[in-house]
């Protein structure tokens, strides 16, 4: 039994212009100690998927269906107060922008303490000790003196460390990281990713990592889910996606990965993702797909397993030989001497 099992998740928002289907029929599971990466462009529904699991979407205008079973409870039907107890204790979340994700008027120590005391009756001193331990664990220098500092006295990378400390302070089973490195510069990115990997080994948490950066995926993920325009279009383990990709969109993502190798040309995917208010008929990617043929414009391709019978799924009408050929071509382009 997986730690979190999400089945047929659908989330839509009522807006003034109509209903926006932000997540359409997404299923996945995360096991203890493993990392699932959800990959896709901005607005493809990857963040909404996680906010739905956390129950953090605005209540008035959100419609949700499907189920998200976490330790034998369906999070989507859990009462408000029960869900509150799950948040921050059993599942916690790190957000994209560390500059705005901490409350500017409270000290770091106070915010960390709050995270502990919301879930456990504990005197201030004990909570402070726990906070200090955590701040040390995430590698903030001179931790003792920094608990009384305010967020604006920290750099972006340090703030993200504080966010990670806050997320892990109650030793959660699952950590959801929503683009945790996007707002950071490259050297800091690597440090934060290493830190998350290391803490995962120490604490044994499962991680859902949301990102648009396949480079980040390559460094951390065990399983990968590729989303496009609210739908899952390909999912599988790390090797399936990087070495045996079967969907033209995944090929596009792989070839838009910048590489230092000589002669490797950066190939962006042309066009922009479609509006989720009125998504195109057929395959949602057909407008930007260089392989598209008639059927792609009318029939929605179902998510099917690869013929080798593995857990590698993709939603594309291309025939087997075309998929094989495409995947080999991409592998040639993105690898040097058989390595990524």
């Amino acid at each position, binding site marked *: 039994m997986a730690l979190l099992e999400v089945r047929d998740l659908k989330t839509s928002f009522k807006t003034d212009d109509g209903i926006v289907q932000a997540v359409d029929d997404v299923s996945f599971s995360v096991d203890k100690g493993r990392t699932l990466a959800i990959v896709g462009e901005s607005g493809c529904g990857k963040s909404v998927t996680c906010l739905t699991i*956390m129950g*953090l979407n605005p209540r008035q205008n959100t419609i949700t269906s499907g189920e998200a079973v976490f330790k034998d409870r369906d999070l989507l039907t859990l009462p408000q*107060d029960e869900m*509150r*107890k*799950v*948040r*921050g*204790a059993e599942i*916690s*979340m790190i*957000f994209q*922008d560390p500059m*705005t*994700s*901490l*409350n*500017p*008027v*409270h*000290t770091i120590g106070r915010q960390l303490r*709050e*995270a502990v005391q*919301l*879930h456990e009756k504990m005197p201030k001193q004990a909570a402070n000790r726990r906070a200090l331990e955590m701040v040390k664990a995430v590698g903030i220098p001179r931790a003792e003196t920094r608990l009384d500092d*305010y967020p*604006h*006295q920290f750099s972006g990378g340090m703030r993200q460390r504080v*966010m990670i400390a*806050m997320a892990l302070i109650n030793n959660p089973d699952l950590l959801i990281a929503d683009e945790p490195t996007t707002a950071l510069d490259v050297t800091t990115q690597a440090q934060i990713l290493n830190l998350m990997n290391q803490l995962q080994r120490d604490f044994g948490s499962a991680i859902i990592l949301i990102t648009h950066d396949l480079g980040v995926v390559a460094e951390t993920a065990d399983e990968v889910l590729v989303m496009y325009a609210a739908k899952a279009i390909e999912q599988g383990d790390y090797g399936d996606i990087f070495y045996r990709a079967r969907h033209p969109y995944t090929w596009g993502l792989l070839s838009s990965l910048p590489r230092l190798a000589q002669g490797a040309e950066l190939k962006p995917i042309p066009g922009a993702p479609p509006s989720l208010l009125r998504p195109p008929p057929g395959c949602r990617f057909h407008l930007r797909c260089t392989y598209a043929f008639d059927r792609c414009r009318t029939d929605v391709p179902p998510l099917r397993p690869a013929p080798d019978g593995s857990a590698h799924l993709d939603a594309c009408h291309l025939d087997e030989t075309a998929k094989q050929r495409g995947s080999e071509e991409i592998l040639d382009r993105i690898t040097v001497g058989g390595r990524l």
Partner: protein
Amino acid sequence: MIRYIIRRLLWAVVLFISVTLVTYLIFYIIPLDPARLAAGKAATPHDVEVVAHRLYLDRPIWQQYLHFLGQLVLHHNLGYSYANRQSVNSVVLNAAPITASLVLGAVVVWMAIAVPVGVYSALRPRSLGDRVAMTGVLTGISVHPVWLGLIASYFLGYKLDLFPIQGYCAFTGAAPGELCGGPIDWFYHLIVPWFVFAVLYAAFYVRMIRSNVLETMNEDYVRTARAKGAPERRVLTHHVLRNAMLPVVTMLGMDVALALGGSILIESVFGLPGLGYTAIKSLSQFDYPITLGVVVFASVLVIVFNLIVDLLYAWIDPRIRLA
């Protein structure tokens, strides 16, 4: 923090000097002979000269100003009324508690209305309650305080006879020759002026608090608080309100100062002998020392209020302390 306070204090001194200087110049420019007014109707030219000398009026303007400033700073003395030789200090100090009672009471009333209504509206945008509140805001902003004051004192005071039509009673008890006094009479006489005064400000503040709270609710750190497992009530009190109230504190400091000026209207309508009323009366009698005294006193109050707000702001918003 110390440097911040010192800088604020220095600014306060600069402001004080500029305000008194400008005020003094304005009265100097007005083409009237203060010495003649002070000496009285039956004065001979010689009398006028003597008076002018005694009042420092025969010196150059800069000496006059320095004398005024010296008297004020060293002896805390604002001078004497031309009309009746009364000390300006005592006139101002008699009027000040009345204006203070009016303004501070009105602040309490308008905040007591604006905070709950503004927060409620923000929590349920577009609900029936929100729409009613927003209609009320529009009405409150549109209604003129003088009109509202007259209507209120006509209906509540005259027709229904629920409240006094006008007048003031000292909080501390009846002064000799006055009919009323003490906290209850004080409250009873001020309650209608307070509400009339508060209406306009309450309307502005409801709107400001509503939009601040709405904006703060969308902040990332509010989402972080929810993700930590904070219950809605705690999210609101610990994370939203504190941040949403930062700009309100600034506005409040400035508005209390502005309200001192605005109190002229309310004081006239309800016959409250406060600072505004005193200033108007002294102007019509060309009794400059009184006018000057009121202006200087009011500016000092404004400066002190701004100083308090600045310091208060540094206390609630840690980011200010470094700047």
